[in-house]
């Protein structure tokens, strides 16, 4: 019933070692960690300022307006998504470090693999497809407006509407935290992940609704979801940092 059941040395036991080693044993983990906020900052800048996907353009527009959207933002979309497809590996790093700390929990590997798998699935429909659709759309500006409209819908629906892959990841994350006795992450972070699943459910109507709060640019489906995701992500980053700090340098490597 206490921390001593953990398979690893308890954090307080190794302070002396820590001082001597000056985090030397964890330089790799710290390096990987700092990529996470850097990647998400770049991600935010790209989606908000350059690609104009956040806030998303309106779904209830005519084909001409969609064509105009691609013409007006062609250059920034090229720059933004060009950079995104280059740095997308950052998403892999961000998921990887979470998986690493999940593997340090006392709950076996299955949930870490489920998180790894579902987040990897999410990278294509939930992030990359919109970049490819938009890049293709602005690649040949003279394309038939109907085709541009299709790319517009496909890109935005896949980006805002990929729900299940992330829900599975949050589910695995939450269950792992609740069963963990190493207290890698605080228990409330597990409960907070439930909010994330709720926001995914509330994004269901983006496939039905073209205007109002539940459209893909709506106050509930998009804005509430984004704000709560931002909060969740900040918490994860902070607690990843704490998990790094508390990880003893002499911890046995994972299998």
């Amino acid at each position: 019933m206490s921390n001593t059941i953990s398979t690893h040395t308890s954090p307080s036991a190794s302070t002396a070692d820590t001082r001597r080693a000056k985090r030397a044993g964890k330089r790799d983990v710290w390096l990987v960690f700092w990529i996470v906020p850097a990647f998400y900052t770049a991600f935010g800048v790209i989606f908000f300022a350059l690609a104009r996907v956040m806030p998303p353009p309106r779904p209830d527009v005519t084909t001409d307006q969609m064509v105009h959207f691609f013409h007006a933002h062609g250059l920034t979309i090229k720059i933004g998504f060009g950079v995104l497809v280059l740095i997308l590996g950052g998403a892999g790093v961000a998921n990887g470090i979470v998986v690493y700390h999940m593997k340090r929990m006392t709950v076996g590997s299955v949930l870490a693999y489920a998180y790894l798998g579902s987040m990897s699935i999410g990278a294509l429909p939930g992030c990359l497809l919109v970049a490819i659709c938009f890049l293709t759309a602005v690649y040949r500006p003279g394309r038939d407006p109907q085709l541009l409209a299709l790319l517009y819908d496909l890109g935005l629906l896949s980006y805002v509407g990929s729900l299940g892959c992330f829900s599975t990841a949050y589910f695995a994350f939450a269950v792992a935290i609740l069963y963990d006795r190493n207290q890698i992450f605080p228990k409330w972070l597990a409960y907070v992940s439930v909010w994330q699943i709720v926001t995914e459910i509330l994004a269901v109507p983006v496939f039905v609704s073209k205007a109002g709060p539940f459209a893909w640019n709506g106050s509930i489906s998009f804005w509430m979801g984004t704000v709560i995701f931002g909060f969740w992500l900040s918490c994860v980053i902070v607690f990843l940092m704490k998990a790094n700090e508390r990880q003893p340098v002499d911890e046995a490597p994972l299998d």
Partner: protein
Amino acid sequence: MTHAEQATSESGSPAASSGSEIEQHPAVHVPGDGHMWVMVLGDLIIFGAYFIIFMVYRAMEPQEFLRSQEHLNINIGVLNTLVLLASSRFVARSVQAARGGDHALALRLTYLGGLCGVAFIVIKAYEWSTKIAQGYTISSNDFFMFYYMLTGVHLFHVSLGLLILGITARELRNPRRRRISMVESGATYWHMVDLLWIVIFALLYVMR
């Protein structure tokens, strides 16, 4: 079960430790553990935002919302409210029984609370199916979009609540466990489900 045990099991989370001191300090204590309260208070804020957004859209087309609202069956709404209130009472009594050491009664009350939760889901499913049969679906208008999404997300909370009540029941069944803070946390979540329904009931069914 001893309090020392609880304290060790939850060390490192200062907010949680108060859960083990109930009997010593009945005057002032946070029921359940602090982690659950983070979830509950945050959820209240998030739902508060959804409710305010609902009101904003209602204010834009009050006539249409009022007309659509007429198609909801108030009897079912009231019935569901009463069912959920009864279940909350059972769960609240269960916490008191567990605190008093009567674990058999606490377990029975938890089951009764869960049974009411199941009844709520059944009634809700009946209500949805009659609405869909009458042709009112998610794409009918903004009101029904809100109706299905708000009640749907609430239903998700109810199912999660049933899961949590199940964990509470397992805690109560096992003589080696019976951590009162677990029982209280489950109850706190369950009452939040009730509280959110009260707001949904007032906004969707009753207000004019």
